[in-house]
């Protein structure tokens, strides 16, 4: 289109246009400056509102008032859309309120934006764990362990690994739990309390050797730690180191007289030591006396069992009873002194009886438990 007469009708049309353009530029600049001022006021207001509401949210979250925390963080996000800290706070508040799906949504978004954020990964792992999805939970826990943390990085990583270990233990994945525990113990930065905690987890993971080692390490700095003593006693007991177990458990019983588990183990450990005819440095007479006592205990257990078990299940027990009756007259201190080979035969029968009766004859007495443990100890089970 060419120049139209409407625009260039004045005597100095071009000059007028140039002036107009200059005025337009001036108007634009002035408008821009004014809006800049307005925008500063606007954003200052927004920032202050966001901070005020997020502070309320944080305080409420701290005091476990999750509803108020949700409100605070949600409002803060109105004024600072996409702020990761507020989103995380909101997710934690929602988790506290039990609104797991909503929290999951926020955390997933945060994870998309910050896949390396430790706390986000940890919370996602917890959600997956609570939803019964151990595969996803393990993945997020591993992410959390190797992620970045804003503060106390080592402690946070250890805590994440501890949670992962507990997840493994809940899911009976002992081997995976053990390997994580070994890694955790190797990089442990916490104090003796943490070490005791790890030792306890080793116990749960049935890694008694590492458990005992950790308890011992802990006891070196605090020999009067009742929990560590009881744990070390249990670990030694499970390993079949009854003398060691007895020593730790005895100390534990003194420091924590109400610890019934340790007291029970101590009793059994005492019995194992006392009733083991194959222990080292035992005199022959003493050994024969122990064998006679064990034989009698096994007979008592067998008789009690035969009277309580239904007939069809007693055939094997009756065989054992016949064998026991046959040997009974020979297994005396005199008989054993005359024929030392009977010791092995008698104890073999005792172990058979205890093994058979342990399966279906009701709760064993401490003596019977001790005999089973002795059987395990000497048969390499």
């Amino acid at each position, binding site marked *: 289109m060419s120049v*139209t007469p*409407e625009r260039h009708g004045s005597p100095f049309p*071009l000059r007028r246009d140039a002036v107009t353009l200059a005025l337009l530029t001036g108007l634009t600049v002035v408008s821009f400056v004014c809006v800049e001022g307005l925008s500063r006021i606007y954003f200052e207001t*927004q920032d202050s509102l966001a901070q005020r*509401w997020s502070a309320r949210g944080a305080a409420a979250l701290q005091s476990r008032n999750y509803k108020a925390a949700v409100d605070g963080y949600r409002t803060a996000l109105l004024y600072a859309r996409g702020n990761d800290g507020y989103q995380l706070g909101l997710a934690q508040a929602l988790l506290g309120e039990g609104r797991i799906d909503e929290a999951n949504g926020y955390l997933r978004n945060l994870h998309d934006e910050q896949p390396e954020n430790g706390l986000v990964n940890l919370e996602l792992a917890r959600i997956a764990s609570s939803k019964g999805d151990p595969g996803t939970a393990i993945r997020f826990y591993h992410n959390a362990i190797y992620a970045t943390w804003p503060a106390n990085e080592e402690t946070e990583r250890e805590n994440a690994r501890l949670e992962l270990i507990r997840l493994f233990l809940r899911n009976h994945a002992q081997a995976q739990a053990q390997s994580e525990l070994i890694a955790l113990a190797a990089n442990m930065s916490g104090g003796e309390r943490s070490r005791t905690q790890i030792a306890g987890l080793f116990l749960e993971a049935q890694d008694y050797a590492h458990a005992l080692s950790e308890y011992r390490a802990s006891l070196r700095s605090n020999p009067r730690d009742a929990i560590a003593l009881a744990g070390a006693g249990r670990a030694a007991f499970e390993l079949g180191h009854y003398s060691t177990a007895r020593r730790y458990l005895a100390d534990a019983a003194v420091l924590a007289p109400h610890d019934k588990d340790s007291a029970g183990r101590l009793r059994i450990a005492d019995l194992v030591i006392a009733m083991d005819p194959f222990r080292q440095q035992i005199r022959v007479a003493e050994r024969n006396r122990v064998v006679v006592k064990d034989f009698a205990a096994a007979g008592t257990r067998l008789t009690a069992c035969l009277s309580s078990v239904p007939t069809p299940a007693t055939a094997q027990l009756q065989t054992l009873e016949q064998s026991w009756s046959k040997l009974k007259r020979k297994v005396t201190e005199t008989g054993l002194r005359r024929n030392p080979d009977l010791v092995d035969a008698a104890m073999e029968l005792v172990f058979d009886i205890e093994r058979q009766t342990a399966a279906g004859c009701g709760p064993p007495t401490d003596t019977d438990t001790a005999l089973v443990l002795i059987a395990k100890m000497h048969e390499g089970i």
Partner: protein
Amino acid sequence: MASLPILLTERHADVESDGSEVSRAENRFSTFLEYLFREDRFFLVLSVFIGVLSGLAVVCFRFSIDWCRIYFFGSGAQPSTLRLILAPTIGGLVIAVLVIHVFPLARGSGVNQTRAALFIYDGYIPLRTGVGKFITSALAIGSGQSLGPEDPSLQIGATLASALGRRLRLSRDRMRLIAPVGAAAGLAAAFNAPISAVLFVIEEVIGRWTAGILGSVVLSAVSSVVVMRWFLGSEPLFRIPQVGAIRPLELIAYSVLGIVGGLASVVLASGIAVLRPRCKSLAPWTHYFQPAIAGLLIGGIAALRAPQVMGAGYEYMDEAIHGHFTWQFLAILALLKIVATLLSYVSGTPGGMFAPTLFIGAMLGAAVGGAEHALFPLIAWSPGTYALVGMGVLFAGFLRAPMTSVFMVMEVSGNYSIIVPVIVANTFAYVISRGIHETAIFDVLTRQDGLELPSMEEQREEGILRVEDAMKPPIGPILNAANLPSWSARLTNVKLPGVMLVRVEPSGWSSVTRKEIESLSDADRGGTHLRSVLANRQLPCLHPDQPLDMALRYVDRWPVVPVVNRADLSQLEGVVTQSSVLERYRDTDSAG
């Protein structure tokens, strides 16, 4: 423009010389100014200013809405029930008084007013209307009416552009186009999506693609977005989570979304079409209370644990995209938003339809996706993808802007992998909406207002007549100019039509009348005279696919116009004559 430094340098040097040199330099400067201020170039420069100023206005508009919201509801995200009910009611009363007494043209969304400015009022939009739209829309959206800021932004931009155009005394043609330029700027800034804004203005406001206007619209849209981003940041309207690959089988699920979205569009459009004239026809004193009653009802909905339906609702769309709501709640929200939007819009409250459309689409999309996933767990539920596709679906179904809807979704998501489901679902929604509710909502509204603006959708769908529709085989022999003497001898005793085509090698055409042939046979057997006549009578050629309107340019001047093949200009496909063209138009009119 490149010559500007040279010109200025030369002019500076000339100041040192004598008077004649100075005069020459002034002439050069004038030439440059003439070059710069030729209206088409000046219009492009002006488009940038329009974009910047519109961007600034939209930024202020956004601030105003937020401040109104804080003023009405307090700074908390969960206002008290009393505030939820009172704020939109009191806001409605204030808005009604303003609209009735101060800004009577500020009603509605603003899109149709811009179209009316383009087609009826020569680009004229009173500045007062824009100011009124700014104030009343900010009050309405800020007080919780279920309306959005985009359409008002569009009108604010158009008003600014119109005011500038009037001040600069632009020609009538330019004035007509300046409102859409401002509209694109306003919409682009509101959406933070320049491509969608340009497409929408071209698709729905102007209705045609022309190079002249496209440049200006693009420039203004881009400038306004740059300004908006300067102040509000370059974050897209929605934060889109990662979108995974979409399996072909899932397109069935998106088709279902298209169908549901199409039906929802029909419900919304029909509701407006039916209720708006009824509300308008009520006694005049009721108009003072209609926005307030709408506000009261919306406040009631909000108080019933659905405050998400208030205002534009972008923050809740964002939450839906990020899967923060259950699909059942999303479905309820979509339903309530339709009700709230109907209430707000039919009560004559100023405000836009874009945001509510997107809201309903997002909620519906995520809800449909969630329901499908619940029924068929194999279908992956990505709430973000479904919400985005849902937005496009409602946009295509309700606003009937199919192209804009596709680009809008891509632009706000920044993800091209969802283009296939968007196209599939939008097509379903568009076809269903068009099948059930024949007239597009903008056309319904203009007709209700007593205006007869061209319907962009009807124009798009209108069948076009082409040259081939009026083309007929040539009558009589086709002569060759090179063989004229022999032809004339052969034709002496043959009955000839009134006019015959003559091929002029290599690919030209001319015509000859029977009388000329007869006179030739008597006077000039060598054809010398006729050849000179033919050479001066070159016929224009048409092609079969050209619009029939084009033939009208020639058929009154030429008795017959050859229609030739595009690939071989010497190959004659047929001819058109004035009678054949008019006959074709008559047939179409009688069939219509």
